[in-house]
């Protein structure tokens, strides 16, 4: 499957971003790209929809094309068993126990091999995202292409059995990209810092009319007149939706608030349905808890829910980066989020949001912000500026162009 098979809405062009990041940044992006003219790149990941990686690639690839660095995005295929295995890998790399069957490593490699056989790697730069397609590097031959592994996962405390299996494959790459220095593993290959980014012009983040926001809240029976606490994330245990409900209940003792838990599922996450059932059970029929299992194309609705919220929560237990935090900060929302993964890069405690470590701490900070709306507003304003400096799509484009130039120069 390639980008040509992924539905393409009308996308903004690079010049459209000048109004946000300034004309000089756009001019310089074009100047950097000019030095790469004639070079081709390939991005490979494991899902075309759902999840932060697919979202980033959806927006990044067209901009790479526009600056004359033709970039092909390909998605590996695999059966239910493969994605069950890679989900277990994902959780294990985040530090969860691993109880894989004896044949799982072989199945992983066999699926990679099947994908490798049907794919071609003629590009100058091949960027492999996350562990699922990691072993495609077996295709590497004598051609002077550059292979890069983009790890979106926090590898600070991985399950050793899974990491020991994957590491020899990682070592074959020319460079690795991590969302935080804390995520790295002391690799022999160069490790570069690559923040994930959001697209300020995407439906999920662009400005919305207040009437539209209100309409979406009403559509989901959320009362705009009372405080709205929202967590946007996949129904995934690592996002701790049940912990969010616990925090909401602690706040509810003091404030007549509502909770929105909105998310969807990705094709490479087979656990979503089970987690959704657990969340519904934990909600226990509370009419002020709104559990919204949204389809992947609900970007405008998610945007409206974030904009309509009083406070946005991201109470993950583990996190790659947590782009939903940047989405909320971009909308100038006060954020209460766990100090895990890449979240502390986005939320600087008491300056761009509030960092927490437990459901009780989450409730405590929510109550504080509800009682101090001017402080909450200042956090949102700072957060917006922080995202503008570091976490917008144009910076991601710049980092890739710079990476490719560095690779050509030799590290």
């Amino acid at each position, binding site marked *: 499957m390639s980008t040509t098979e992924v539905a393409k809405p009308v996308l903004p062009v690079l010049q459209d971003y000048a109004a946000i990041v300034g004309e000089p940044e756009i001019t310089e992006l074009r*100047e950097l790209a000019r030095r790469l003219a004639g070079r081709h790149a390939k991005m490979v990941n494991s899902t075309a929809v759902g999840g932060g990686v697919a979202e980033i690639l959806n927006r990044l690839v067209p901009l790479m094309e526009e600056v004359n660095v033709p970039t092909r995005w390909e998605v590996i295929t695999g059966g239910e068993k493969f994605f069950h295995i890679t989900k277990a890998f994902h959780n294990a790399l985040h530090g969860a126990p691993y109880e894989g069957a004896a044949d799982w490593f072989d199945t992983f490699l066999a699926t990679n091999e099947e994908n490798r056989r049907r794919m071609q790697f003629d590009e100058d730069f091949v960027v492999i995202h996350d562990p699922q397609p990691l072993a495609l590097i077996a295709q590497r031959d004598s051609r002077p292409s550059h292979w890069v592994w983009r790890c979106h996962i926090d590898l600070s405390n991985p399950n050793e059995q899974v990491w020991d299996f994957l590491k020899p494959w990682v070592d074959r790459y020319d460079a690795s990209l991590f969302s935080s220095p804390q995520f790295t593993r002391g690799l022999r290959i160069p490790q570069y810092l690559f923040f994930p980014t959001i697209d300020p012009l995407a439906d999920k983040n662009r400005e919305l009319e207040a009437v539209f926001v209100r309409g979406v809240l009403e559509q989901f029976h959320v009362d705009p007149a009372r405080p709205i606490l929202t967590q946007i994330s996949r129904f995934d245990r690592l996002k701790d939706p049940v912990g969010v409900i616990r925090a909401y209940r602690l706040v509810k003792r003091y404030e007549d608030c509502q909770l929105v838990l909105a998310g969807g599922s990705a094709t490479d996450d087979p656990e979503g349905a089970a987690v959704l059932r657990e969340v519904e059970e934990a909600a226990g029929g509370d009419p002020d808890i709104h559990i919204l299992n949204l389809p992947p194309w609900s970007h405008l609705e998610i945007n409206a829910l974030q904009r309509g919220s009083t406070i946005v929560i991201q109470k993950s237990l583990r996190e790659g980066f947590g782009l939903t935090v940047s989405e909320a900060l971009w909308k100038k929302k006060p954020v209460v989020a766990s100090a895990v993964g890449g979240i502390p890069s986005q939320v600087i405690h008491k300056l761009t949001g509030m960092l927490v470590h437990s459901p009780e701490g989450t409730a405590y900070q929510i109550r504080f912000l509800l009682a101090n709306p001017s402080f909450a507003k200042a956090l949102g304003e700072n957060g917006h500026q*922080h995202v503008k400096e570091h976490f917008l799509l144009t910076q991601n484009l*710049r980092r890739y162009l710079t990476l490719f130039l560095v690779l050509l120069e030799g590290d």
Partner: protein
Amino acid sequence: MTVSLEAKRAEQPFQFMAASYLIRIGAQPVQTLGELANSLQIGPRESIFYHTFQSLEAHHYTSFSSDFAQWALTACNEAALAEKLAIVDLREIVSLEDLRGILVQIVRDYLKEHPQAAERRAFEAFYFCEAREVTVPSGSPAWTLAELAEGIRHLGHQSLHYHFINSRLRLQLKTNDFSYWIEHSLNHPWLAARLNRIDFYNDTLDDLRQDILAILEPQEGR
């Protein structure tokens, strides 16, 4: 006959560069202040520079603009050490080896007074990083101060950083690209010195741009 600064044409033009940086993360994390002292002693000079100068644009949201000071405060809870690391007057230092020596001395002196802090594990590890720099010529060369100011108005953040801050690594910390050109190609050392006195250490990059233009623009009109 006097020639106004605005009209004066330089002997050599100033070539603006579009600069971009890729941050390379070191392989060995530092877990304690004792390890920090050792890593400061033997780490790459590019890392010393990076953690002292490169992170300036993020300064609004941290207590200190030096990464070493910020880490000592937030990860080691050693506020007094953080302050000592933060107040090093960079203008008095003319080489990275001198800067390295001063930082090492500060940490070692502190640990002599507070030996219990040397081996205490930080809340979060410190990773020595360094910036890989890529540059390409950008825009039209400037022959006059007015053209220099116009070019500065149109520089991206990273390119402004390259010319005014990262240039200190190339020029042994003494000056910046704009001052160097004004002094050597326009023969105006007083103006070069004035520009070089800007306290960029406490500025954001947008503030820095305004400070530079505030000095250059009156000269344009003379």
